[in-house]
């Protein structure tokens, strides 16, 4: 696969900014409204999520976990409706019934998102099965964390996908690096050893490196489309310090793109994460270094995204709570 063009790299970055500014607004909304108990934000995973979204084509399907906000936004869902869902409002993506852990947007291929660890992987294999039978040429994406490989359903789904030759791209976000509090306990030396043993082609990518992720996911999706067989990508990520938020907070501050060129200014407890692991700042540096844009251009883009998120917030705030009858309807088709 050719290296992404400047336009493609900028588009990836634009989506990453949407994801980041969306999540930052979620934190502000949580501080203002106490709308929900817990949030699992996608901050730090933007390069991976945006690269996956860009590898998707119309008609593809995706199933994600509780940590779904970034994917939903990267795929182009309306951020106002996503905020409204997280706030339990009428105009939410799921009409206020699902909330943060269950955002979905069928038009963009999001059929459901699961807060049961392991819930997404089997459904994604099922979507691949249907797409294969339909002969549409479309493929399915399964997003899950390293924790999913603890669950038996992961092994069964990988095995089934391999045996039936299902066109599914398994996207495993591994944020359990040695020395951090792990979200999985696996005896295998590397996560990929598991799918590899089941004869699934595997790739490893630095999930916070936007260029590497963009190339890896495009290549992997192409491979799934061409061969009709599953591919497993492990994207390694450095866990963002606020990744399990019970109380809404900005442990690494509000993202400031200009810090990318001023890393010595970064201090505090989580300075390392900001300096080395923040995919947004890493991408900012890379785009400037490669002459894709200058800082001013990126800041302009960022300002636009911020305005868009402000509008989206206003939309969600103006949305009323759902009509009471909604609670009792929609359990069955009729």
């Amino acid at each position, binding site marked *: 696969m050719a290296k992404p063009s400047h336009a493609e790299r900028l588009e990836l970055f634009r989506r990453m900014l949407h994801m980041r500014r969306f999540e930052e607004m979620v934190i502000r909304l949580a501080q203002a409204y106490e709308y929900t108990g817990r949030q699992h934000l996608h901050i730090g995973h933007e390069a991976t999520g945006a690269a996956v979204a860009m590898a998707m084509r119309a008609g593809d399907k995706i199933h994600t976990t509780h940590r779904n906000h970034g994917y939903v936004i990267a795929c182009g869902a309306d951020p106002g409706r996503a905020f409204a869902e997280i706030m*339990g409002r009428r105009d939410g993506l799921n009409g*206020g*019934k699902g909330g943060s*852990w*269950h955002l979905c947007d069928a038009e963009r291929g999001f059929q459901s998102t699961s807060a049961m*660890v392991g819930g997404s992987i089997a459904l994604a294999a099922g979507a691949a099965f249907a797409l294969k039978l339909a002969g549409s040429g479309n493929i399915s994406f399964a997003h899950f964390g390293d*924790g*999913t490989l603890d*669950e038996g359903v992961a092994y069964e789904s990988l095995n089934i996908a391999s045996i039936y030759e299902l066109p599914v791209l398994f996207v495993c976000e591994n944020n359990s690096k040695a020395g951090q509090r792990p979200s999985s306990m696996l005896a295998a030396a590397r996560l990929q050893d598991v799918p590899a043993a089941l004869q699934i082609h595997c790739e490893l990518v630095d999930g916070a490196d936007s260029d590497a992720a963009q190339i890896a996911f495009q290549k992997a999706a192409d491979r799934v489309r061409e061969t009709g067989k599953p591919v497993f990508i492990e994207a390694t990520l450095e866990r963002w310090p606020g990744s399990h938020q019970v109380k809404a907070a900005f442990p690494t501050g509000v993202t400031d793109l200009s810090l990318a060129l001023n890393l010595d200014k970064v201090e505090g407890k989580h300075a390392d994460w900001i300096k080395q692991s923040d995919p947004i700042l890493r991408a900012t540096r890379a785009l400037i270094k490669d002459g894709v844009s200058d800082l001013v251009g990126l800041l302009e883009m960022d300002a636009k995204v911020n305005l868009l998120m402000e509008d989206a917030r206003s939309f969600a705030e103006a949305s009323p709570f759902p009509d009471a009858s909604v609670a009792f309807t929609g359990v069955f088709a009729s």
Partner: protein
Amino acid sequence: MDESRLMNFRDAVLEALFLEMRADPNVILVGEDVGAAGGVFKQTQGLFDEFGDRRVIDTPISEPGAFGMAIGAAMSGMRPVFEVMFGDFMTLCMDQLVNQAAKVRYMSNGAARVPLVLRTTMGTGANLGPQHSQGFYAWAAHTPGLKVVIPSNAADAGGLMRAAIRDDDPVLFFEDRLLYNSSCEIASGLPIVPIGSARIVREGRDVTIIAIGRMVAFAQEAADRLAKDGVDVEIVDPRTILPLDEATIVGSVKKTHRAIVVDGAPRAYGVTGEIAATIMEQAFDWLDAPVMRIAAVNAPVPVSRSLEPLVRPDANTIENAVRAAIA
């Protein structure tokens, strides 16, 4: 030493674990984040420090396998307390629970036994949505071979956990998360509460409310309001739904001649139907009105703050039902 203490639900269950783990080295705790992390609801804090990683065991996110391991260990001499973080995740344990734990004593003609507690949290009210708000106790009670405990207050929770750990059969122990911080006076030594005995929470003459778990507090709130209008409500908390203390429930209804059964889980094929039918069978001639049932609607639990309260009963629903029953 013989003074009673004010203690909350979470701490009472934790104390029960300390007491039983000290008393019997075969008691072990197994679950996700139960070790050094102290539990995601702070419900296992301190156990790891005292008993170490041989008796307080963190598992991978592998509910079926880890639970099966606990059952096998129980059959082989241990007394595991297995923790399922959210009751919703129990579904992953269902095969091991229903086809193994519940059956092996019977199937082996008594040769095998499963002295094990499955403890889990449940309940609506925290905007956690459809996959994190369910209480599957009726499912469990439908399976012969499982005992099912649903404490409504701290003293019962602590005392019943002690009884559950000492029981020689699998006991499911359901804890409503919204009760964790509710406190009551607990007698010194955390007295054991026997499984299968109901508690008369409040005596009254006009109507019996049978309520479980957090619904007991709602029933008390409703009873306080009704008392102002001269309606005298009796409240019975079964505390364990299997075995069910039918005698206490039926005795109360024979006295008041009216019964309302309240449950926070969906109504269809649930606890209210079972208890209502028991009353009809055993106290039909004493009833002045049909037994009423109040339960959650047969729908998943929506996340929205505005929708979630609509699907489950509260003090208002109970109060209105009592007024209708005595009208």
